[in-house]
């Protein structure tokens, strides 16, 4: 009973809630971010998060659950992209640009119609992690565990297909199935984090920790672990910085991640000399 009381107090504090939610998202973003980097999908992540804006406006228009609506829209856009790639002669990045900006534009046009609702556009673009409630945290952890569990089971297939698609296909890894599921997982992590990190910064939280990890790791497993840790450290440090010097929390997290990235660029020899 006393334990419950402690938790109650913990969750009552908006800052602690932000920390818990942020750490949850960083843990999910670590492994997914590595795959995004390995597969050169950073712009794909951007497209999904831009389309998330459309998801949010639709959720407001029809009073849906935001996370659910964002997930559906991101998934639809991802599948649309896969389909378009087979049908047109345009390169992948052109199609991504087309989808990213048109969904963003549709979302912004729709916002214009929603005059009856007070709309916090800034909050949508950059998120507001300090406003998370217990339900948001529950969603992050339930959704996060689901995403990581699925990812665990399709990891070998995804990873081998990332190294070489033909090889994975030939050796019974069923890469087309795992690729499809991976796309849904990406849509999932974006849906989970849009309220906290915002449409414009989600890709940053996916990419930068994984980029930090690439600079300092020599095996895939190491890279996944370091990316996850770097994400968690960025969230914690970023939130404390934002509390201390009163800056907005989402961007602060990304700035901390960037600083970690710059540190990770310093070659090992110089680091050794600095320690002396």
């Amino acid at each position, binding site marked *: 009973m006393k334990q419950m009381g402690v938790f109650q107090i913990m969750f009552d504090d908006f800052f602690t809630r932000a920390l818990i939610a942020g750490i949850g998202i960083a843990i999910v973003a670590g492994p997914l971010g590595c795959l995004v980097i*390995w597969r050169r999908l950073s712009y794909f992540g951007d497209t999904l998060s831009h389309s998330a804006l459309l998801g949010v406006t639709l959720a407001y228009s029809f009073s849906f659950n935001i996370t659910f609506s964002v997930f559906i829209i991101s998934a639809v856009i991802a599948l649309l992209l896969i389909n378009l790639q087979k049908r047109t002669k345009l390169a992948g990045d052109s199609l991504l640009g087309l989808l990213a900006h048109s969904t963003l534009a549709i979302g912004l046009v729709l916002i214009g119609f929603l005059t009856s609702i007070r709309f916090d556009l800034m909050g949508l673009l950059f998120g507001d992690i300090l406003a998370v409630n217990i339900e948001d945290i529950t969603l992050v952890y339930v959704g996060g565990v689901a995403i990581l569990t699925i990812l665990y089971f399709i990891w*070998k297939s995804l990873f*081998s297909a990332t190294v070489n698609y*033909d090889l994975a296909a030939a*050796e019974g*890894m069923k890469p087309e199935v795992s690729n499809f599921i991976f796309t849904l997982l990406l849509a999932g992590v974006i849906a989970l984090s849009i309220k906290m990190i915002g449409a414009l910064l989600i890709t940053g939280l996916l990419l930068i920790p994984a980029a930090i990890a690439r600079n300092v790791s*020599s095996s*895939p497993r190491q890279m996944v672990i370091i990316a996850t840790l770097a994400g968690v450290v960025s969230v914690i440090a970023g939130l404390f910085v934002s509390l201390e010097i009163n800056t907005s929390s989402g961007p602060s997290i990304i700035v901390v991640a960037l600083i970690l990235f710059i540190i990770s660029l310093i070659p090992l020899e110089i680091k050794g000399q600095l320690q002396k």
Partner: protein
Amino acid sequence: MLENNNLLVKLDNCGVYKSSKWIVRGVSLEIHKGQIVTLIGPNGSGKTTSAKMILKILQSDEGQVENYAIKMSYVPQKINIDWTMPLRVIDFMKLTSHINNLEIIDALKLTGVDNLLYNDIHNLSGGEFQRVLIARAIAKKPDLLVLDEPVQGVDFNGEIALYNLIKKISTTLNCGILLISHDLHFVMSATDHVICLNGHICCSGTPKSIVKDSAYIELFGEHKATTLSLYQHDHDHSHETDGSVSNNV
């Protein structure tokens, strides 16, 4: 029928149609356990495409593909590993199967690169990488092994050793091997069945019968055909299990 029990793959009049033309058409072949089947032919003749049909990477747009292989291993012709991925040889060996370090080292020893176990895969030379690719395919202990120009970039002595290894594996693992190779010497001396492709099957048969085929001579030209009689001569005098072919002549 014993013959049928050993059947791994059967293509019956298969082909792939892409961008409004047939890349390869009318391919019929069988691969049995313990047998080495080779595909030869000029560039763009559909060798890799045929291999991909066998491996079920590509769907055949006509005809029938029967594949009874339980475990397939593939050595692709080209493989580019992105620099964004940190990958050591040991990680690469475990790519599609759960094998232990002992099996990995054994396989790498067979291709002579066991010293590279913890090396970054991006820093290997072309030949070393090729050896790792072959080792990975062998380590899985497949019943069908598909090798698409497996010895490209390997030094001369290594080439002979690797071809001998391929020959040995077909008997020790009793697996079927499909080999795409430009090395007519090995093709003619050590394989069981040769298929000559040029958009379709020009001719096929045992190495001995195929060199007499007019379609073969036409495809490889007078020059190659004459070189081939030389190859056959080599074959008559020394056996391929001995690495030093030229010394014996």
